[in-house]
Structure formats: C-alpha cells, structure tokens
C-alpha cells in the first residue's frame, strides 16, 4: 500500500471533497427506485442488501459515512483503498483498529466489495 494511502492523508483529502454536490443526485435517483450501482456483475450484491450491510458501518462512522467524532469518516474515499483496508483488517494484515478486525472477520469478499463501492459512491441510498 503506497504511503499516501495511509489513513490520515486519505481522510484529510476526502474531507475537502464536496459530497453535498453528489448527495442530492443520489437521493433523487433512490426516490425513483433506480439501482445506483453501475452495470450489474454476477457476483455483485443487490442494492438493498448492500444498504443493510452499510447500515452497520454508519452507526460508528456516521450517517452516510460522515464522521461524528474520533472514528474516521469513510464517505467518498477511494473504492480501491476502502476494499484494501477492509480486506487487510479481515485478514489480520492491519493493526486491529478497535473493532474493525473483529467485524470484518464476519464479512465475505463480496460483502466487503459492496461496502467499498457503497461508501466510495457517497454512502447514500
């Protein structure tokens, strides 16, 4: 993992992105019942299942992944970075990070990919 992908620098970069520009579009799409994910791949989880999975994350990382305190925000982070971090937590290649290793050990790779995409895309239904 390149050094600039390390936690803080990535988080700081994400905080200067304007997610407010993205959110209304995603919300209105959700209102129409459209699928947010791109072209469906065979292994991809359905959107409602991804939404339920993501529902666990936001209880600590904040609504739609927007930080509410010491636990870092995850909204709008790079999808590849999120996937790599979550897999590293699960596989014990990252520092335990409070509950993250314990939680990720309960997720399969499809679920982790769905979460990475979900929060990379703005974390909103």
């Amino acid at each position: 993992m390149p050094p600039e992908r390390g936690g803080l620098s990535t988080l700081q970069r994400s905080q200067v992105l304007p997610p407010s520009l993205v959110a209304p579009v995603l919300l209105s799409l959700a209102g129409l019942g459209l699928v947010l994910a791109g072209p469906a791949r065979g292994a991809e989880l359905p959107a409602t299942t991804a939404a339920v999975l993501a529902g666990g994350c936001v209880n600590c990382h904040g609504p739609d992944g927007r930080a509410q305190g010491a636990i870092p925000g995850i909204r709008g982070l790079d999808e590849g970075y999120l996937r790599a971090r979550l897999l590293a937590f699960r596989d014990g290649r990252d520092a335990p990070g409070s509950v993250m290793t314990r939680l990720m050990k309960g997720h399969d790779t499809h679920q982790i990919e769905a979460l990475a995409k979900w929060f990379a895309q703005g974390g909103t239904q």
Partner: protein
Amino acid sequence: MTGPTRRRVLGSLAAGGASLALPAMVRAGAGSARVVIVGGGFGGATAARYLKRHAPQLQVTLIEPAPRFHTCPFSNLYLAGLRSWDSLGHGFEGLRGAGIDVIHARADDVDASRRTLRLSTGQTLGWDRLVLSPGVDMRWDALPGYDEAAALLAPHAWKAGLQTQLLRRQMEAMADGGSFVMVIPDNPFRCPPGPYERAAMVAHYFKQHKPRSKILLLDAKDNFSKKGLFLQGWKALYGDMIEWVGLADDGRVTRVDAKALTVETAFGQVHKAAVLNVIPPQKAGFIAERAGVVDASGWVPVKAESFETRQVAGIYALGDATLAAPMPKSAFVANTQAKLAAATIAADLLGRAPPAAFYANTCYSLIGPGYGISVAGVYRAEDGRIIEVPGSGGVSPSDAEAAFRADEAAYGASWYAAICTDTWGA
C-alpha cells in the same frame, strides 16, 4: 380509513417530483400503505427513518409518549458526572422533517385481526404493517419485595428517565464511606455490559467525592459480558472499591426490603445498603403482550430473516423486546434490526426481493475517562435461526496498551454521536 388515506397519498404523489415512480407504486399498492411504529428509541426511530428512505411514498407514523427520548446508553456516564442529562435527550424534529408523523401518546392496545392500534388519546390508527419496538418492562412479580413502589426507594434506573435522576440524587446524598449495592439479574436482560459499566462509573464518582465508599455487586450469574476486561479495569482504576459476587458465591438476591435498604441472598445472607440499585428481571414492553406476540418467556419470538413476529403476520418486533440470541439486547443491535426490517417491509410493499438478513453489534463501555473497552459481533440468518458468523466478533485484547484503551474511550463517544444522529437525524 383506507379510502381517504389512499386519495391523500396519491394526491401528494401526483403533485410531487416523484410522479415518475407512480405506476410501479400503484401496482404494488405501496402508495396507500401505512406503517405504524410503536416506540421512539434506537429500534423504532431508526425503522421509521429508514422506511422513509427506502420508500418515501409510505405513510409512516411513530408513536412515542416522550417528547424527548433519553437514552440508556451513556446514562451511566451521567451517573458519573461525565455527561449532562440534556445531552442524553433526543427530539423528534429530525423524524418530522423526514415526513414521519410522530404522535406523542401511549400505545394501549392492538387488534391484530382488524389491524388497528388504540392510543391513550382515544385515537385508533389503522395499519398495514405494525412495528413494535417497545423496549423492556420490569417484571414486578419476579423478585419478592421489589415492585413499582419499591423502585421509588431503591431505583432500577434501567429505563433512562426519572429513575436515573433519582439514583444520581441518592449517590449525591450518600455519606462518604457508604455502601452502594447493585442487584443484577440473570440473562436475558437489557444491555448485558450495562451493570458493570455502571459499577465503574459510580466508582469514578466516589473516587472523586466519597473515596471511602464501597460498591457491592450481587449477581445472579457467574459470567457476564467483557468480564475479564471489567475485572482488570476496575482493579486498575479503582483498586478494591468494587466487589463482585457471582452466583457461585451466593450472589443471587431472592428478596428485597426497599424501606430498610436490605437485600437477602439465596443462602440467607443479608446485605445493608446506603444506596440500593435493583435491576430486576425484565420482559418485552406491555404493548407486545397486548398484540399477542410474546411467548411464555415474556419476550417476542421473531423470524430470523425479517424480524416479523412468529405469532402474527404483518407485525414486526425490534430491539430489547425480542428473543434474538445470540445477539445482545443493545442499542446497536436494535438499530441494525430496524434497518433490516425497514428494508424488508419496503421491499414487501413495493413487490421487490427482500435483502439478505445481516445484523451487527458494537458496544463500547467506559471504565474511566480515557479507558474504554469493546465487544463486537456479526450475525446472519441461517435455516431460520440467527447465528453469529463463525470466526467474527469478540472483545478488546486483554493485553492492550493504554493508547488502545484511550482510543476505545474516544471511539465510544464518537459511536454515541454517530448512532444518535443516524437514529433521530438531528
């Protein structure tokens, strides 16, 4: 009331920007569907908000007596003097802003065949789906000597409110050198680590203000959530101030005398308290009994994949009221159950495929400022049962450095801010 309701909802849909979605909604009948939710806590308020997110056209009504909901999570920090009472209160402006009809009344009765709910105001509401998230009620018949009147002398403080404030006042009035006695029930009960976090938070207060005081925990069981971490943390921060007595050492209390502030154990030992905190056995909130969804245990059995009740189709139950082992009765769990149930109900009403059942838990407990510990778990439905995903979950390492404990203390505060914002939207 179906006729006027349908006309009103369809009318508002046609006038709004969501009209493109109308044909599918009409075919599915969701435009006229009404979901009524009882309880404005972590389960009920979350269910209401996520139902609206999944299906904005649904008519969602939430019933909650309190204009501001005070949380049990972090009420131990209030006892310690680390949080203000006001900081535990959450209003319903966020729900109303999301288009949810919030009615401040008590839910008194359910007619499952007519699909109605009667309120303390005399009003009767019709529903297409009913979600019960009533929390717990105390079993006033389970512990001899401990009834509602006794709770005014020896508070349980296991529902955040006047009881919690009463216990804090008793701690403030107690003389230095007094004995704080806590009676702890057998499983299952609300918030498995709660009594042990409370012991630490009371100790934090005593250490500052009444350092000669003692805390005695009389427990009806031999094991409890995060036991090793609590024993280690109590010792590190408070020395011998906290004494825990489990079932094997005659910790089970069988009689309470609230006037005398004494308790008697199974083998006849009598303990005298200066402040007596009795956490009695519990059951599902009253309305669940009225709805006919509880079993002989007093709790609500639910379908693992949806949290629809096993007894009555169309009625869902969430949170502490349910039989959902191995998931604990925690705020986090109630919130994730609510998200699964909301997505399931919306999918059902919209004629879509339901989501895969997935639930999670994370509970931070504070032992002292800068000293936090955690437990986490991941759960799914398998063959009609809830299971913990093998290999997942567990507690903080026992050999963690001080920085890890400090991080988990900070994460606990961050968790509280995040889950409350997610639940009440304010």
